[in-house]
């Protein structure tokens, strides 16, 4: 498979022969072999530690920017013949390495497939894989509709990207994620054929295998999605945001559960732990509720919206929270696509995204807080209620990649994932970094998945080394035990270094960590001691410079 490519690319500086052939065969301007350009396609949103290059060769040998599905077919056929891996890429805004090559090859930058068309008759929008979600939402709005759901990264992410990562985002609580939205899609399979999966004009629930659902969340391992037809809903008569502050993470968690068990149906529910709010405070923002914040949006007929708003406000009070002013609620809603602005405090953001049972939200958040605290770095948690049963949590740590010790902080990301598994949850994605966890996640079903992959992609050219097969650039499988042990070790080293750094904290005490758990109580005691030592009570999450 990829052997031929990998051997040729070892000669640094000169492109492999196949890449020159590809350049000649394609229209001018569609293929880049420029080293400066190729170097920019070796990462996604996650900062790539230099050491990752020991195991992987993330720099592609060629980048292709197709503008039509036919050009995609042409390149796939070429790649099959040449035995070169293909890595489909949207806007590379994910953090699991799904669009990062394991060992060079061709990166397909699909942002050129960006056409968008709204069909009023079928109430659908058909968008190219590279269309930006914000543009799709804008056009739908101008035609009198709205998208039932879109990613929290909508201003920068693509339709194809969210399909391939099986996204759950804004609107998922009410309407479901991307899996509920896709009516049909066009996919170039690894044999070079362009096929339609699903039906454009009617719901695709039967009359054949549901291959469309197989592709959703497949992380580019089964084919290249070139276009998708998505369902729309009529634009609402009215919208109304609601924000609520809570004294601590416990009350916040109680509210989210009360809400999920009521008949109130917000469009979107997001929540923020006290540490995240204090990070916002460090940015100079006004944070009226430091103990925890829930931000919601209601939409629909105005009478229904008002009823739901009042009912949710009652639940807020019942859980011990306070309803914020509508002005603050609107500000909070306006920021819902900008939650990661806290990165400015880092300046490096290390994060994970996990799904956990909604009933265990408080418990998981407390565990994540303990992990962050053990590492002695600032961090926080941003969450959304993905459905009545499931919460999506984005725990993050703010580090500084310019410091040598930051390498060890990467283990922290793995700890978040492990915690979610222990609590009956799962990582939100697999990609490159979590592929080794697949045996734990699926046990026997993984063989069936590999059989599907083998059937559709016998030459294993479609995004190899991801999801179902964890491999290094040497084409050797990465054993789960080794990867897990490695991440645990570096995580342990980082936690030990945290003691050295003498972390001083004066964050307002979070009852998110006040569980009956003995360990949590110990953390509280330690924090109280730290508070006594802290010279500047105004400083939040202050990390002293390494000696």
């Amino acid at each position, binding site marked *: 498979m990829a052997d031929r490519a990998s051997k040729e690319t070892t000669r640094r500086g000169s492109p492999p022969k196949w890449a020159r052939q590809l350049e000649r065969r394609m229209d001018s301007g569609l293929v880049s072999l420029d080293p400066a350009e190729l170097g*920019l396609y070796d990462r996604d949103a996650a900062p790539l530690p230099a050491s990752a290059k020991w195991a992987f060769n993330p720099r592609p040998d060629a980048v292709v*920017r197709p503008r039509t599905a036919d050009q995609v077919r042409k390149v796939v056929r070429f790649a099959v013949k040449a035995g070169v891996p293909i890595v489909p890429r949207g806007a590379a805004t994910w953090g699991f390495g799904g669009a990062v090559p394991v060992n060079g090859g061709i990166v397909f930058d699909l*942002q050129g497939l960006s056409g968008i068309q709204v069909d009023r008759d079928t109430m659908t929008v058909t968008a190219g894989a590279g269309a930006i979600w914000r543009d799709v939402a804008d056009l739908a709005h101008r035609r009198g509709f709205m998208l039932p759901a879109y990613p929290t990264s909508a201003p*920068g992410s693509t339709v194809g990207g969210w399909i391939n990562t099986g996204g759950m985002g804004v609107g998922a609580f009410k309407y479901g994620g991307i899996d509920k939205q896709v009516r049909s899609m066009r996919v170039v399979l690894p044999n070079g054929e362009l096929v339609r999966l699903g039906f454009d004009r009617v719901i695709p629930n039967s009359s054949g295998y549901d291959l469309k659902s197989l592709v959703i969340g497949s992380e580019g391992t089964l084919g290249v999605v070139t276009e998708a037809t998505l369902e729309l809903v009529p634009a609402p008569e009215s919208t109304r945001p609601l924000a609520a502050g809570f004294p601590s993470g416990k009350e916040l968690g109680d509210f989210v559960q009360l809400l999920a068990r009521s008949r109130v149906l917000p469009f979107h529910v997001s929540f923020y732990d006290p540490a995240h709010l204090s990070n916002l405070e460090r940015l100079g923002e006004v944070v009226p509720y430091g103990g925890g914040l829930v931000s919601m949006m209601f939409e629909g007929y105005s009478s229904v919206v008002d009823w739901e708003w009042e009912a949710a406000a009652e639940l807020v009070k019942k859980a011990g929270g306070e309803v914020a002013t509508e002005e603050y609620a609107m500000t909070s809603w306006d920021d819902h696509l900008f939650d990661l602005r806290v990165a400015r405090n*880092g300046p490096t953001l290390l994060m994970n995204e996990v799904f956990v049972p909604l009933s265990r939200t408080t418990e998981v958040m407390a565990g994540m807080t303990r992990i962050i605290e053990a590492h002695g770095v600032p961090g926080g948690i941003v969450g959304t209620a993905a459905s009545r049963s499931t919460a999506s949590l984005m725990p993050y740590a703010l580090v500084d990649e*310019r410091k040598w010790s930051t390498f060890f902080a990467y283990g922290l990301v793995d700890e978040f994932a492990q915690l979610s598994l222990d609590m009956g949850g799962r990582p939100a994605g697999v990609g490159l970094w979590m592929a080794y966890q697949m045996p734990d996640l699926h046990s026997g079903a993984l063989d069936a998945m590999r059989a599907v992959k083998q059937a559709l992609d016998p030459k294993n050219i479609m995004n190899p080394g991801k999801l179902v097969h964890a491999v290094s650039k040497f084409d050797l499988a990465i054993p789960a035990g080794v990867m897990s042990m490695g991440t645990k070790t570096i995580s342990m080293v980082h936690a030990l270094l945290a003691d050295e750094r003498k972390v001083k904290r004066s964050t307002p005490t979070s009852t998110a960590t006040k569980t009956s758990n003995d360990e949590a109580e110990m953390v509280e005691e330690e924090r109280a001691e730290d508070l006594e030592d802290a010279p500047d009570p105004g400083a939040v999450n202050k990390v002293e410079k390494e000696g």
Partner: protein
Amino acid sequence: MSSLQSAGTTPKEAKAAKEATVSPRKAADGGKVAMVRPPPFADELWACIHCNYCSAECPTAREVGWESATPRGKIRMFKDLVEAWRPKRGVTVPDAFIRGVYECTSCGRCSVVCHVDIDYLAHNEEWRRWLARSGCGPMKDHEVLVRSLANYRNPYMSPRRDRARWAEGLDLPTKGDILYFAGCSDSYVHPDVARRTVAVLRALGHDVAYMGVDEPCCGSTACRLGLEGPFEDLARDVVARVREVGAGTIVTACPGCSSAFREYYPKAGYDLGIPVLHLTELLDKALASGKVEVKDRLPGSYAWYDPCHLGRIDDVFEPPRRVLAACVEEMVDLARNRRESLCCGSGGGLKTAFPDQATSIGGRVVDLALDAGVNTLVTACPWCETNIGDASAAENAGLEVVDLIDVVFRAMGLKTDTEGTPRRRKAPGRLSL
């Protein structure tokens, strides 16, 4: 040291760079060698989270597509350059970076949409100054523009003696309360806008003066291209001539000029000493005080288009809307407006070096206007008027693009003054910005 110079350059280095005629040295493996030390990789740039918000909004990144044209891509390339630079060897700047830095209309949308609040535009402009000082920039296609600024004091390669042809027959004095700074574009490309501006200002009771053939370029073109020497030369000239006129206020109808006066001049230490108003702000004040007598509101529906340098850069959003709404039957906003307004594609030297990109970017605004159901788009920037007009013509879209002053002029029932009006000069496409 001018504050426009990069913080990473010592005064000695800056002086040496300015004095030396730096001839770019081609690197063996492509690109050019920059001997001048790059400015430091700013702390805030480390916070880039690769979210693509800027790139999805950047008009040129959308046109070009490749990562090297995106702000996030350029940030990464610049970081590598800073790390690779050595005192005696310099650093090889890849062509992809040079091209990428000049593939920017300086619309500032990236800075507004940035997830982590990075003022990307300021960095891009700083990199342009560094490239110019190292002899690695601007682009070859900009050379004619640079020569034109030096020889003709305008970017259009038009003779200095023609500068004030627009004012023939108007009997404009060179002393007065209000100095009307016509700017290069209205002087040479849109003379009718300049004449109507004077007519309206007079109708509002102002004592209008102008600089005549001596009016130099404001320097915004040079400044946005990173050409410190030519900019400072023009700015010095402008400041001296403004003092000569001795007016109380400067009014200009060009956001390029007004934003240069308000943003770049103070940064570089040039003080005009009197307030600067964009024409739309003056009209808004006149409207509020009841001086604008609208005789007949123009029939039909008109859309307002926010020029980047008037809106996002100078924060003037509502005044032109109030004026337009008072002069027409119906004013509509485009779907993308105010801080979210789409760029016309003309700024930052893009139209000079990459004319096709500029027209294509303008086409997005044309589509937006047609989608809003209007046939006339009103703006208050000569660059926008020219480029969106070009895009409309290229698409045969039939969209008319006019300056706000045309609408005000007609709504006030002022007479068209054709006598002595010079023939409208066609904009030399590759030279306009």
